């Protein structure tokens, strides 16, 4: 249960093609994350899979069943919305029970499943409250609870954490990952936060303007991005790109090197520069170094004691150098 295949799926709003034909296969039990910049069509793609939006072309198969024309309720998928979309006039218990009630389950089954979901999500004490009386994180859990009780073939999440504060996000991120390990159900998760993508995903799908740029495990994308866009999008702080002569030396149009793959020295190295801003995070130090090749971000350990104006030498780790041709494709 939980295989999803898209074949040549296309979506246009009027004349505007938001998603050109794309193919994608999602395996059973996988945690797949769609990432990409704002407006690239992540939500649209998710809504196409959910059935909330009609495809303009192509086919969707869920568990081998052609599902392109099935209404959302019959696809066996559950969705968690960014705004939670809880029913404000119903108690938490009724919210979670709603899908079961719609499926005409008997009361004993409903009670058992709601109780079970509430236990998994630590909501037992809040069952009689209204959504308006809950915190953001609790609401999020209710929304997930409503999805769990349906025992869907796959969960769809559309930026579920973007309304939460930073600390809570990290928490919920962990909870969702744990939930995935417990339930082993396919999950499709949309985010524009590449940290969420890297930490949670089994498989990341990087989108740009509706096109799939690359599909792969987080480390695959980190180690061997297929093009400049993916290279710049995955990893934080961003990869440094250098063009011109320096790139030509390596036989490329542009070279890319991640901040963590550059050695810092005060005495010798490949590129000479001056420290601009330095950010000390305790465990790490991020330096913005001005060189002949433009500003280069470097990551050093927490002990680096360089300050603005200091002269430094940078040496890239040649094994970790990424080379791109004129079209931006990796060589």
């Amino acid at each position, binding site marked *: 249960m939980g295989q999803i295949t898209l074949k040549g799926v296309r979506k246009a709003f009027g004349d505007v093609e938001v998603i050109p034909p794309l193919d994608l296969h999602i395996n059973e039990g996988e945690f797949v994350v769609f990432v990409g910049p704002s407006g690239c069509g992540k939500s649209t793609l998710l809504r196409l899979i959910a059935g*909330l939006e009609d495809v303009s072309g192509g086919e969707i198969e869920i568990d081998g069943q052609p599902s392109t024309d099935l209404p959302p309720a019959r696809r066996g998928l559950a969705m968690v919305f960014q705004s939670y979309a809880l029913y404000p006039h119903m108690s938490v218990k009724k919210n979670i029970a709603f899908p079961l009630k719609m499926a005409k389950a008997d009361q004993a089954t409903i009670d058992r499943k709601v109780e079970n979901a509430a236990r998994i999500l630590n909501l037992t004490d809040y069952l009689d409250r209204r959504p308006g009386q809950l915190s953001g994180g609790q609401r999020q859990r209710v929304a997930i609870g409503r999805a769990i009780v349906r025992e869907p073939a796959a969960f769809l999440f559309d930026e579920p954490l973007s309304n939460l504060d930073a600390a809570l996000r990290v928490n919920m991120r962990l909870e969702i990952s744990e939930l995935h390990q417990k339930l082993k159900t396919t999950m499709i998760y949309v985010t524009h936060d590449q940290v969420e993508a890297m930490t949670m995903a089994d498989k990341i799908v990087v989108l740009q303007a509706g096109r799939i740029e690359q599909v792969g495990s987080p480390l695959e994308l980190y180690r061997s991005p297929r093009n400049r866009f993916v290279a710049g999008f995955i990893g934080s702080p961003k990869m440094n790109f250098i063009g011109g002569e320096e790139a030509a030396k390596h036989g490329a149009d542009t070279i890319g090197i991640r901040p963590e793959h550059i050695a810092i020295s005060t005495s010798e190295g490949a590129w000479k520069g001056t420290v601009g801003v330095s950010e000390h995070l305790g465990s790490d130090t991020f330096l913005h170094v001005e060189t002949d090749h433009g500003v280069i971000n470097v990551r050093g350990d927490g002990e680096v004691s360089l300050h603005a104006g200091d002269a430094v030498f940078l040496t890239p780790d040649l094994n970790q150098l990424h080379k791109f041709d004129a079209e931006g494709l990796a060589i």
Partner: protein
Amino acid sequence: MSTQASRAAARLMISPSVILLLLWMAVPLGMTLWFSFQRYNLLMPGQGGFTGWDNYYYFLTDPAFFTALKNTLVLVGGVLLITVVGGILLALLLDQQIFGQGIVRVLVIAPFFVMPTVSALVWKNMFFNPVNGIFAHIAQAIGLPPFDFLAQAPMLSITLIVAWQWLPFATLILLTALQSLDSEQLEAAEMDGAGAFSRFFYIMLPHLARAATVVILIQTIFLLSTFAEILVTTNGGPGNASTTLTYLVYVQSLLQFDVGGGAAGGIIAVILANIVAIFLMRMIGKNLEA
């Protein structure tokens, strides 16, 4: 920060308008109260004087009183039922993406701008008239005898006219409420397996409850004083079949020239309206909280 002095100044400054408002309300109410205890009949000048509760006694024991009370409730209840149910249905329709949406919306609002007397006359002469009315024509076309609405079903006819006038108001308020419903809630319900009817009953209707409460409260206040439609169409008749409390007060004081009795009727109407208002607030006012 308001100091003692500035607060005193503020009170002084708003006092003229407060006093004016108080006079505006208190003087007519006080005069009505005063008249209601006076023997004051325009046909019998010189026979004035205090009569105690007589006016109230005669008004309450008037055989027309209970008919009027019943008619008032029928009118208010009937119009509320038609406008709220019809308003929700119309709002659902107007919320759809239809061709010429703007024009349709203006058309729906139009009855609200027609004066009560005019709309009552239009209904009386062009729709209900047993000879020239559209309904009579339709009845004849399908071989039925024409139905004289105003004579045979006066309350129903008046309720229809008033409901027609208030339907746009209800529709407008309910439509804005419907449009403020988060579409993600509907989508979530759709994914949860709720069909169109379940979505309506479990998601839309509870969302509309608050707006419907506002519609009911506001309309009740105005409907209790419905007058022009009755005067223009049935004159409270046949007999007193369509006499409401408001109309009965008019009959007492201006047709029977009994100012004292009319005033007593007016006070009774005020008390009854307040009782209704308290009940309404109790029953549905809690929808307005939270």
